[in-house]
């Protein structure tokens, strides 16, 4: 084994991770099957299927994105070696706080047989967009797991409606792409909701098609939501690094899998999805992120997101911002473990330069 050489700057949060009492806020919205397939082909299906032996596809019954804001009050590392290197015996190490914004999308991983037949579908999740407000977490997610974690600001201002949710996410980005355009901390997305629904109303407020979609991607959904047993969602991530000499080339490309286990689920709260607004702002970089990952056209003919009626329309005929139609909105508290991290497949010599 070649030892990783620790230094001041590599003091990353090492997996596995645990965060108790995490507050999870989830919003479900539709994404087109074509957009998910494009993401799979760009980031997962590298090289020839017969060479790599697997193929990713959207789950036809679950073409959705799960937008989440998760507050981790005390995320920690369960890695033993780091603490031991400082002469400390402990199960948990390196506690930090963070809030994370991400969009997760379920996909099917098929095995490819000798006759190029796709068999044995397994559900995995991709995270095309992930933003954190903690730099240590961002470095760890990017450099260990390969997540494209962006560093930004995630704030929770007072909600406009009593008891509602309110989150503002900002990113260093550009309003327009031009040589004289300055990078600034720009709004990326604003999320607001009405107050929680009473139990009697909550059942009716949950969109039945949303439940069907979720159950297609999370077979044990009901048990998890009722806190009866934990649910494990398996992430798949393209981990890659650039060559220093030629930044268009990759020195390493692999698919990493990581199990996110939700347990001790409590405090389930349901919001009226019609009261939820998720507004992606209309900067150049924001448009590009949405276009790249969710295949939302940047000018006209929006497919997934709907323009807001009555908003200003710029010269490009783009809406002032784009707003997905939310089909379900819930919050709950849980213990989240990220564990069983493995290299599922290393791409070597599958793709010519």
């Amino acid at each position, binding site marked *: *084994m*070649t030892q*990783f*050489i620790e*230094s*001041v*700057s590599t*003091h990353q949060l090492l*997996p596995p991770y645990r965060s108790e009492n995490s507050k999870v806020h989830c919003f479900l919205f539709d994404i087109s099957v074509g957009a998910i397939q494009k993401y799979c082909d760009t*980031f997962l299906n*590298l090289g020839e299927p017969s060479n790599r032996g697997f193929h990713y596809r959207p789950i036809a019954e679950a073409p959705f994105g799960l937008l989440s804001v998760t507050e981790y009050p005390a995320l920690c590392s369960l*890695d033993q070696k780091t*603490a031991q290197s*400082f002469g400390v015996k*402990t199960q948990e*190490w390196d*506690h*930090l706080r963070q809030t994370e914004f991400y969009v997760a999308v379920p996909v099917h991983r098929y095995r490819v047989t000798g006759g190029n037949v796709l068999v044995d579908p397994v559900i995995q999740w991709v995270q095309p967009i992930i933003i954190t407000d*903690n*730099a*240590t977490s*961002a*470095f760890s997610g*990017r*450099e*260990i*797991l390969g997540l*494209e974690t*962006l*560093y930004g600001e995630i704030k929770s201002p007072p909600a406009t409606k009593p008891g509602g949710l309110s989150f503002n996410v900002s990113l260093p980005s550009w309003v327009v*792409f031009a*040589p004289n355009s*300055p*990078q600034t901390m720009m709004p990326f997305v604003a999320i607001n909701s009405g107050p929680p629904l009473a139990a009697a109303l909550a059942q009716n407020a949950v969109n039945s098609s949303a439940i069907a979609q979720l159950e297609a991607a999370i077979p044990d959904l009901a048990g998890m939501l009722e806190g009866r047993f934990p649910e494990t969602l398996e992430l798949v991530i*393209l981990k890659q*690094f*650039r*060559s*220093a*000499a030629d*930044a*268009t*080339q*990759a*020195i*390493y*490309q*692999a698919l*990493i899998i990581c199990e996110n286990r939700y347990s001790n689920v409590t405090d389930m709260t349901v919001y009226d999805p019609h009261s939820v607004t998720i507004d992606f702002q209309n900067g150049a*970089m924001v448009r*590009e992120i949405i276009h*790249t*990952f969710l295949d939302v056209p940047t000018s006209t003919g929006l497919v997934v997101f709907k323009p807001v009626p009555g908003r200003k329309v710029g010269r490009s005929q783009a809406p002032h911002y784009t707003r997905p139609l939310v089909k379900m909105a819930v919050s709950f508290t849980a213990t989240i473990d990220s564990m069983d*991290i*493995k*290299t599922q497949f*290393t791409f070597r010599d*599958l*793709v*010519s330069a």
Partner: protein
Amino acid sequence: MPQFVQSVANQQTPPPYHFPGVTAHAFVIDIQMAAVQTYCDTYFNLGDERERGFVYRPFSVWPYALLMVVQYPLMINTNRTELGLDEIPFADRGYSSQNEVFLAVPLVRHGVTPQNLLLNAAIEWALPFIVVDNSTSAFSGREILGLEKLWGRIDLGSGQFPNGFSASVEIPGWSSLDPKAMQRMRRVLHITTGSPLPGVGHKSSVTSAWTMLESPIVLKSFQGLADAFDSLVTMSNGVIPTPMRLVALKQFRDAADPHRAIYQALVGARSKYYDIANLTLYNEQDVAITLDTSGSFAEIAKIFLPNTPGPATADPKVSIAAHAAFGFTANLDFDEMSTLHTFPVEGDDCASVDGGGAGMLSPWLRPWWGLINASGADPQLPNESAS
């Protein structure tokens, strides 16, 4: 090597860069040669000496380091690589800005055999401690070049004295080794100067590092370097601060076992200062540099102050003496990125060999290498260590 799957949203902006109008403040501080040798052996002299074919050592004739604070009002990416039909080249995306604080330590690298003793000889700078306040810069520096960039908050000001200078650096850290300690933003470094020395500020004739050395105070700071070279011209060509050739260990962790490396290589780049102007000198007696060595910052203290007792010290704030302090403005180019040497790593799932060899060539020999090397042989003799 395969194509990197371009993802415009990943907050990387691959070099080269052009940084016009930077304002730099440099503080010459002691550094212990034994600590530098340990640093070289830990991060650069990996594996068997004969197999890798080179060795890094402290630049013993000048036992100092530069603690630098640099303001970049404009960071212009000059990378015009075509990214695809729908994507805009990095150079056309816009500019950014940042403040940066780093420690630069000069090293000597040379070959270990008679064949490559001089071919591989060079002076390079290691940057064992870097803080930037721009996350795009941090991600790019860490992931593309292997630079040890940390993200933090850097507040710059004029201190308590007219036209003086101050810098305060905060980074995320833990105040103790208590397993339950919560990470928070903590001040790790604080620098203040007095007012600039009279009569030497804004010297119009200072246009390069060479002319900057005409200042007796600056020259005195670098006298050891000057003695080691035939002339100041030679010195300014390779040592202070134009151009600085950087070296860094670029490495990545295995996802399943984060204590294992899947890639280790030495990466080089050039940081070239020019159009130097507005030289400002400070009395080194007026300079106060304070480093917090408590908690997780003890690791940083080991670089600056190898004899620091550790995190349990009664007064964790340690003063560092400056031998000279000066500021200047300049234009700065960052380019000539290369993989100097790829170390072999164990495992079938590890990264590709990323070139190497030609980058080890001495800068003085580089223009002539094509003429005298008709066979195209690798100058990094006798290393054939690519995995």
